[in-house]
């Protein structure tokens, strides 16, 4: 029988949006769904998962799980999968999901399909579309053999359907031993307190056109005024003007927000592969032939050093 196990992700004591998207989608298809919740002090989030449709929530809540560990998280998910008897395991294609997905699939002795942007589920028959070759092609994939279906879905690919309040049927899992072979020492936050690009509804990104750190500082207040995530092209990160954790692109974060502002970004393939799934793209560039204009819904051909201050002023007026 078809049963989904959603691997939930938590940040700052909240369930991340891509997890809610997975639960909402399973729920909208009336699929029986469980969830597994892992972390330190996360038990309180089980009710949220139940509200979004998780029938049972398998919880591994322990100080040793506060930081992500491949080995411990793989063991917990495998344990939850076995207890729930799920026929499918759904993850998000976050950095955690990317690390975890192959490991879980291999442990269960099955294949996996990652970074899905369109998912059709008919019982345990899956038809999944996913971009490849820097989003120059879309692969339509399926599973060829029996066994559990392990897959990961890109954030923003599905919609969140608002939930009802519920109280979870929670099951405590045993806590795996610490992995001494890959010891997680700490997490160094490069961009503390800022909006996670994978979560952001709106993203403002800067490219080489900002010319230097001063240009970055000019655009940053626009992101703040809008309440947007603040990203960058590879050129900006390689130059050290912004941390690599801000990089949007095939080799950085792949994002699909409702609105994407590309400020001084020419639109190299590598960058387009990371943001062309955005619902609305606004570009500002002084070169009318910049490739970014081929994907932009609204393109301003002009000097960003003039455009951005006007945008900031007007947005501040609107936001009051």
């Amino acid at each position, binding site marked *: 029988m078809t049963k989904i196990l959603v691997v939930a992700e938590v940040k700052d004591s909240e369930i991340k949006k891509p997890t809610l998207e997975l639960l909402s989608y399973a729920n909208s298809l009336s699929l029986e769904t469980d969830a597994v919740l892992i972390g330190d002090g996360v038990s309180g989030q089980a009710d949220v998962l139940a509200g979004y449709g998780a029938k049972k929530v398998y919880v591994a809540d322990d100080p040793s799980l506060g930081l992500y560990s491949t080995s411990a998280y793989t063991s917990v998910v495998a344990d939850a999968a076995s207890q729930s008897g799920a026929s499918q395991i759904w993850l998000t294609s*976050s950095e955690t999901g990317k690390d975890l997905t192959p490991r879980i699939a291999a442990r269960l002795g099955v294949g996996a399909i990652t*970074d899905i942007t369109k998912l059709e589920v008919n019982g345990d028959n899956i038809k999944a579309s996913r971009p*490849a070759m820097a989003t120059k092609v879309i692969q339509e994939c399926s599973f060829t053999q029996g066994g559990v279906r392990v897959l990961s879905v890109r954030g923003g690919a599905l919609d969140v359907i608002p939930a009802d309040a519920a109280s979870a049927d929670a099951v405590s899992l045993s806590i795996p031993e610490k992995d001494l072979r890959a010891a997680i020492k700490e997490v160094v936050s490069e961009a503390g307190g800022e909006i996670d690009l994978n979560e952001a509804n709106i993203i403002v990104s800067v490219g080489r056109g900002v010319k230097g750190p001063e240009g970055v500082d000019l655009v940053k207040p626009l992101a703040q005024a809008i309440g947007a995530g603040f990203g960058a092209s590879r050129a900006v990160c390689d130059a050290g003007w912004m941390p690599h954790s801000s990089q949007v692109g095939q080799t950085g974060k792949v994002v699909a927000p409702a609105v994407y502002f590309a400020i001084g970004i020419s639109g190299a393939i590598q960058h387009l592969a990371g943001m062309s799934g955005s619902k609305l*793209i606004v570009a500002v560039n002084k070169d009318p032939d910049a490739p970014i204009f081929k994907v932009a819904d609204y393109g301003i051909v002009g000097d960003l050093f003039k455009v951005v201050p*006007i945008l900031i002023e007007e947005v501040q007026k609107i936001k009051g």
Partner: protein
Amino acid sequence: MNIIVLIKQVVDVELNIRVKDGALVEDGLNYVISSWDEIAIETALQIVESVGDGEVTLVTIGPDQAAEALRKGLAMGAHKAIHVSDAGFDGSDSFAYAKAFAKILGDRDCDLIIAGKQAQDTDAGLTAGMLAEFMDLPQATNVTKLGQIAADKLTLHRGGDNGSEVIELSLPAVLTVNDSLYEARLASLRGIMQAKKKPLETLDLAGSGVDAATVGIAGRQTVIDQLVEPEARQAGQKFEGDEEETTKQVLDLLVNEAKIFA
């Protein structure tokens, strides 16, 4: 320190790519080492140079022409290469390749296995992690920075969701690398000449020891049924002229048409 680098020759995604009848149009395609795999080779060379001894061995499973990618890696400075080539692998998925690599690498003396974070053609990012699980090795994926390098231990940063995760990894282990880690060196002319004399072992399916039933169509767990072209985004409206005016026009559309601040 003996390091194995898994490399893959892929379609050059910088060039034009067209799809017809569910498959790539071969005409005009160029094949290169997947760019993250070049970083993997660079990383291996840096580690061996830092420790002061050891060998870098490149391994690929791929058609005859994939030997070019191995020669290029040897020219960069890798010491030897293994080319597993057999039509029996055709149609394999990441799962089947990971199983095959586990078999091929299982008996070799190796402290570290390094690969790119994903291959540039599939962007799947599965093979290295599956291999680590099959070989029961610890892993660190999406490595962005190396700290201390010792013969039995690495300290490194991996790009995680909430920042850089600092990991102390005991060897043997599997790493996948992000391209912010290093810039791949270019092969020197001398390197290219030397590469011609470096050992390149070619194995067929039987020679590799991999069970034919575990690879190709029989061994795969997933399949790409077809390729389609992505829906082309329609270029929208372009506004040129005085910035004061164009910016306000666009803002008006954002507020009243797209309702982004609603």
